[in-house]
């Protein structure tokens, strides 16, 4: 490796890492939080079989799952202004990532909710709990536990997906790598470097996932 490239990589590393920590991670966290809220709401509507809302939710999932994420980003950021809806690039990114992953996570959550045995609900009624109380204290916690590995995968996939925000001018880690590359023309080196940073963060998240799964295993296996 020549000295110039080494110098560029060493210089750019702290900068890229700092964008990763200051922009990519918060962008992921915000989007994921939104996705969680959306997915739980959508899953609950379907689980409880609320009539009209259920149709709306199916429609939402159909649209999101049937169109590319990149196209959704473009539609919201470049398309909506022509009907008067102008969003900050960052806001547009959070909304699109949140509602996009939310659709997939809603299916995960719905499956997890349906896997909780009916007996849990019946037992709740018989000790004097209301539907919402049973959902909050018994069914949802168990569903989250079942959904945890799949939700962790969604988080990791979302983290990598945030690099697409570069295409709508959000200055996140990958966009920063592009900017630096525009000055120094070291595509292979710089993009490898940014790939390694993504890899490191994902490895860390995977590790956290394992720890989380162990913690959740505390209350043992599924119903007999």
């Amino acid at each position, binding site marked *: 490796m020549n000295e110039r490239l080494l110098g560029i990589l060493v210089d750019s590393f702290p900068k890229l890492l700092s964008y990763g920590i200051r922009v990519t991670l918060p962008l992921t966290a915000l989007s994921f939080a939104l996705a969680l809220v959306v997915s739980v709401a959508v899953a609950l509507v379907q689980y409880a079989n609320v009539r009209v809302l259920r149709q709306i939710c199916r429609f939402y999932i159909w649209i999101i799952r049937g169109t590319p994420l990149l196209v959704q980003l473009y539609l919201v950021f470049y398309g909506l202004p022509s009907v008067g809806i102008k969003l900050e690039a960052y806001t547009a990114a959070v909304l699109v990532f949140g509602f996009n992953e939310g659709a997939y996570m809603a299916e995960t959550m719905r499956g997890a909710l349906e896997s909780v045995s009916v007996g849990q609900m*019946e037992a709740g*009624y018989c*000790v*004097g709990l*209301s539907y919402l109380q049973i959902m909050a*204290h018994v069914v949802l916690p*168990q569903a989250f536990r079942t959904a945890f590995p799949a939700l962790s995968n969604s988080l990791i996939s979302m983290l990598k997906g945030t690099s697409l925000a570069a295409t709508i001018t959000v200055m996140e880690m990958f966009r920063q790598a592009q900017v630096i590359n525009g000055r120094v023309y070291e595509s292979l080196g710089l993009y490898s470097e940014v790939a390694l940073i993504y890899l490191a963060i994902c490895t860390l998240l995977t590790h956290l996932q394992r720890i989380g799964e162990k913690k959740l295993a505390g*209350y*043992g296996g599924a*119903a007999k």
Partner: protein
Amino acid sequence: MMLEAKNVHKTFEGTEILKGIDLTVDRGDVVAILGPSGSGKTTFLRCLNFLERADSGELIFDGTHVDLHAATRREIAAIRRKTAFVFQNYNLFLNKTVLENVTLGPVVGMKIPRDKARETAVQALARVGMADRLDSYPSQLSGGQQQRVAIARALATGPEIIYFDEPTSALDPELIGEVLSVMRSLAEDGMTMLIVTHEMDFARHVSSKVLFMEHGAVIESGPTQEFFERPREERSRAFIRSILQARE
């Protein structure tokens, strides 16, 4: 009289499961609901607590009349506050510890202060011999232990009557005794109980009344001793005979 069910009907997908069941329970009664599999015993019990909605029928509980088909949410909640249910598969809350299983209903549902609920729960758990496993999760317990915790959970809500739906049917044979002995001690303390069971010895020696059902109808009902020693109906006699033969 504490509880009376009148003319309970239920049909599942065109099959008549309950063809007009009547039952009366006095305070302190231990009623065994007996009968071959598929006779509708469990469905009847579940209808009484609205786990199934009967097609028609009336429930009179402490003088309050409730339509088993058309009961409102409030009426159902009022009935459930006075009753408790023990399931065949225990149905302990899998994400809660033993103690939490017993306190969840009182604390969250009935708004009883946590300290007081805990005290009641520990007493109930001591009564079923599970006070030393407060922090265990259901998956860490044997079936017999889980069922005893489920009984403590039922007791802690302060019910006037406890419904038992085949409480020992899911248990390994060596674990049945511990559950039955807890139920026997409840009966001796005067707890009113309605028990769907296949445990004939238990029914014979612990229950005070028998309701014998077949094909969704009551064939015979009356005091336990009479039922076993002088059954009035030929079908009852055949059932008792078949149970005795199966044992030999």
